[in-house]
């Protein structure tokens, strides 16, 4: 019974190669190795790279899904890049995919840091490293805002989303309210708005 069902889903999957692009585990690993190696300067810096690799090149996840993962990653423990990798991996190949993608994203860090710890203890005080990073930071700034513009076109579609966007940005910059709390409040706001909209629609129908 169970086996038959398994065979059935296998047949279904084989019949629909176009709709759900399948990722091989090794491909998943390699993609996230590239993403890990190109992430300079924390969580958001990864966004342009992951968008390029995962959304544009492989079509593994939509921009909306990436923003969702990003929001949830703010409330769960661990690095945002790592959490996003786990999300995308598990979407593609379940639990094992999540683990493989995570191992991929941390792999470059581990290799590079071990090499530096072994041979280049004064790495951070080499002047060339500082100059290179000044250039990289300027570049990462540009990449982040290009991503923001792109996601904004898809997400900021009505007055509600614009207002929420501006309020959360102001709170995040000018107050010390913790980020997880902001995310939770935004989620609750979205939920309440949905209830209100439903109520209004029901009234309109009557």
């Amino acid at each position, binding site marked *: 019974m169970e086996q038959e069902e398994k065979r059935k889903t296998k047949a279904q999957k084989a019949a629909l190669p176009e709709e759900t692009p399948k990722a091989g585990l090794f491909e998943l690993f390699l993609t996230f190795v590239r993403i890990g190696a190109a992430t300079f300067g924390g969580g958001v810096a990864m966004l342009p790279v992951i968008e390029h690799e995962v959304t544009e090149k492989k079509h593994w996840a939509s921009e909306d899904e990436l923003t969702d993962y990003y929001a949830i990653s703010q409330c769960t423990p661990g690095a945002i890049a790592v959490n996003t990798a786990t999300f995308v991996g598990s979407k593609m190949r379940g639990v094992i995919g999540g683990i493989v993608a995570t191992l991929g994203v941390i792999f470059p860090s581990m290799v590079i840091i071990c090499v530096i710890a072994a041979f280049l203890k004064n790495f951070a005080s080499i002047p060339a490293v500082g100059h290179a990073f000044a*250039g990289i930071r300027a570049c990462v700034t540009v990449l982040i805002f290009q991503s923001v513009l792109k996601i904004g076109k898809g997400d900021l579609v009505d007055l509600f989303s614009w207002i929420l966007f501006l309020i959360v940005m102001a709170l995040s910059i000018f107050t010390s309210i913790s980020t997880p709390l902001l995310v939770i409040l935004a989620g609750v706001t979205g939920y309440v708005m949905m209830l209100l909209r439903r109520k209004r629609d029901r009234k309109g129908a009557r």
Partner: protein
Amino acid sequence: METMLLYARLFYEFCKTGLFAVGGGLATLPFLSEMGQATGWFTTKDLADMVAVSESTPGPLGVNMATYVGYTVAGVPGSIAATLGLVFPSVVIVLIVAGILHAFKDSPVVQGIFKGLRPASLALITAAGLSVARIALLNTDAFAATGKILDLFNWKCILLAVILWFCYRKWKLHPIVYIAISAVIGVVFQL
């Protein structure tokens, strides 16, 4: 036997850090400094050096720190034990959350919640981007020292950013290409 115990201890200590450091990156710092004091594995000065290296290499800060501490304490196997320990709790939690999301993704409640989450998430990305821009394009230290408004702007980096902006819009190359070019420009022009 003793080395195995050391690996297990590294895994366990970083598991704790990974579980409680919400938001990643610098959130791991207080836990690490406590760990250094409790175990004697590294001093506060070592920690500062490790932060400097972790910030100057690719990869998430927390992951880099775990690898560095693990390597210092017990070589390559130690770095593996510490890093796997750090990501272990977050992987378990995210896999659970992903499973729940997958099961309920079509429910109106989840849809409603995401309707609020997306603009908020974009706002947080923008805010984080602004703080990156502040470090990348402004000289707040020089401005505080001299008080001249012209010293506030890091003109060379701003020029680079403007050029990159137009290049990126025109040629959609892989982001790493632009990052590599920028690193070279940074070294050549002493940014």
